[in-house]
């Protein structure tokens, strides 16, 4: 049974999405239940996958679609490959999907009136796409799955208001350019190697020793550009802030933590599996230094842009831009510590972004104001929500024992090991800026008086009095928040064993 786990993780939500569409608009509650069950099963299976991969019997699961054997050492069909890294990311993806479904119970009905089944179908398909991206070992299949995630996210974002539609359009343009660049890169690799399987491409490139070929270098550049566009690496980040900030809240909460992180994972895998350590880090090309500097720029710019925002969600989205810089920089440091740190940060950043986005969505919902003054006096009014928010924020700042501290620790270790001091400085700078951002909020939440919300935000609301309206949200929204903040702490406590698994896996990949 274990050997079928990878494909089952994908199939369960796929069928879930189909069932949701078949159920139709008349039964929104059943749509929710279906989605909950399918993602629950999927995350259970991925949990067992993690255990199976860790248990030592199977170092990595390989799954040949259609059972096609290899021919003369080449894969004929499409292959899935799940090692511990992939298993962890898949688990994170499905789990966040599951928890977000709990969160969306009341929000979906309220925010996408009448389109609930489409929302759940698209959401589950997005999860399918993300899991597929993480597990596949086929360069072209990766493209198809990237497009699946892109299309679902275009639609999910555009379900929001008119600003959301506009930002979704920008996302379409940027996303298409990114995915097409990736496709071009794959095409260049195909023309030189004649295969699409990631391992085989690496093998052929090694056999022919065509590392120095111009076309391979161009392929690498374009694949990187494509992946960076998708993950909103700094100069290519333009689409992200508006898209996530204006999307319906239950869309933003799970796309923000997942999309960019999965693409970072893809980048690490392309670097290590497809091209290999020698090619990427040889120092023979200038890109090593250059990309570190770009990531420094991303971190600094992302942090400063976040600092300049007064809109909570916008601020968080710019923080994502900075965090992407962390991970890209970490992956490019060229040592296992940095890579493992970047990978650990994928997990921890997913957890803390999820936590913060849920908290921010709850607060915007209750206060009816998305600016920072929404936080005035909230420690008294919504203590539970604020606890969740605080955990996420402390992790963002990087204080122990939250996972944010440990990922920063590993990344800084990697930076010092590699002698990239500019990267270390950027990380610290961003921590400080995050501290300013969040303590500014804490101060408001702690001391501030609840501001009288303007009437026009709630023209029909009978309890427009903020004192009455601002209260804790139902449990269906608080439980996800606490699960998320618990995960932030749990990842921090478990960091050592996690890091060891990651490190071992990466060492094997680097060898």
């Amino acid at each position, binding site marked *: 049974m274990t050997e079928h786990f990878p494909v089952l993780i994908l199939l369960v939500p796929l069928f879930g999405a189909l069932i949701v569409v078949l159920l139709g608009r008349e039964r929104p509650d059943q749509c929710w239940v279906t989605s909950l069950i399918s993602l629950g099963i999927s995350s259970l299976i991925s949990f067992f996958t993690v255990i199976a991969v860790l248990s030592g019997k199977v170092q990595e699961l390989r799954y040949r679609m259609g059972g096609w054997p290899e021919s003369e050492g080449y894969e004929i069909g499409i292959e899935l490959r799940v090692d511990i890294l992939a298993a962890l990311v898949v688990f994170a993806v499905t789990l966040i999907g599951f928890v977000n479904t709990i969160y969306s119970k009341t929000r979906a009905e309220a925010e996408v009136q009448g389109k609930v089944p489409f929302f759940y179908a698209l959401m589950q398909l997005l999860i399918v796409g993300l899991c597929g991206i993480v597990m596949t070992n086929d360069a072209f299949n990766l493209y198809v799955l990237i*497009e699946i995630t892109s299309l679902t996210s275009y639609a999910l974002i*555009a379900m929001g*208001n008119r600003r959301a*539609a506009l930002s979704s*359009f920008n996302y379409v343009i940027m996303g*298409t350019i990114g995915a*097409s660049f990736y*496709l071009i890169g794959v*095409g260049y690799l195909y023309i030189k190697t004649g295969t699409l399987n990631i391992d085989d491409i690496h093998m052929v490139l090694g056999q022919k020793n065509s590392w120095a070929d111009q076309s391979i270098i161009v392929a690498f550049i374009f694949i990187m550009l494509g992946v960076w566009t998708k993950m909103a690496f700094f100069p290519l980040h333009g689409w992200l802030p508006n898209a996530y900030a204006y999307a319906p809240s239950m869309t933003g909460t799970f796309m923000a933590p997942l999309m960019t992180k999965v693409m970072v994972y893809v980048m690490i895998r392309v670097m290590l599996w497809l091209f290999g350590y020698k090619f990427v880090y040889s120092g023979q090309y200038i890109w090593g230094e250059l990309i570190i500097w770009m990531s420094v720029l991303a971190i600094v710019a992302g942090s400063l842009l976040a600092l300049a925002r*007064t809109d909570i969600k916008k601020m968080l989205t710019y923080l994502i831009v900075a965090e992407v810089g962390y991970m890209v920089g970490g992956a490019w440091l060229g040592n296992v510590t940095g890579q493992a740190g970047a990978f650990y940060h994928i997990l921890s950043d997913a957890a803390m972004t999820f936590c913060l986005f849920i908290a921010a969505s709850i607060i915007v919902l209750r206060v009816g104001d998305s600016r920072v003054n929404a936080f005035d006096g909230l420690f008294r009014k919504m203590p539970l929500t604020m606890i969740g928010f605080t955990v996420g924020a402390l992790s963002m700042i990087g204080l122990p024992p939250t996972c944010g501290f440990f990922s920063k620790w590993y990344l800084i270790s990697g930076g010092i090991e590699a002698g990239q001091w500019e990267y270390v400085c950027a990380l610290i700078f961003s921590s400080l800026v995050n501290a300013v951002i969040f303590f500014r909020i804490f101060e408001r939440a702690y001391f501030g008086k609840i501001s009288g919300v303007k009437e026009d935000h709630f023209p029909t609301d009978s309890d427009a009095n903020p004192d009455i309206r601002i209260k804790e949200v139902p449990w269906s929204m608080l439980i996800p928040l606490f699960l998320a903040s618990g995960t932030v702490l749990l990842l921090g406590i478990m960091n050592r064993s996690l890091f060891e698994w990651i490190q071992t896996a990466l060492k094997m990949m680097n060898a």
Partner: protein
Amino acid sequence: MDPIVATFIEENIVPNFNYWIYVILMMIGLYAMITKNNLIKKLIGMAIFQTAIILFYVSVGVKDTAGIPIISHHGSEHHQMAGLSSEAGSTKEIHNKIDKDKYANPLPHVLMLTAIVVGVSTLGLALAISQKIYKSFGTLEEDEILNELRPGGHD
């Protein structure tokens, strides 16, 4: 013509003629996507852009001598079969004789079938989104939309 240019064309452009065309098409599309003000024009650029990539992939699979990648067992093979039947040749041997230079590489075609589908889907969705934008902003010109947003929306 300048001999240097001539040799350049002869050595670089002529043998890779298709690739040059694809790059030029792609640049046209990309330029439209980046700089055009009208959202529909951007989408037209996107379509050109994706088509260019399809051209590239299909060019990869072309062989000098080959036809479409469908095995034609009505022609030569039947003759072979007739000839071989007396020697009790099995179908296996016949298939072994498939001349792979006669058939174009099927893989790029398959890949591009997928890419076409993706392109259509993206275009359809993007058109839907631009309709929604038109519905709420009353225009498809990017600068006019941004102008409308400036005074009203914060940030």
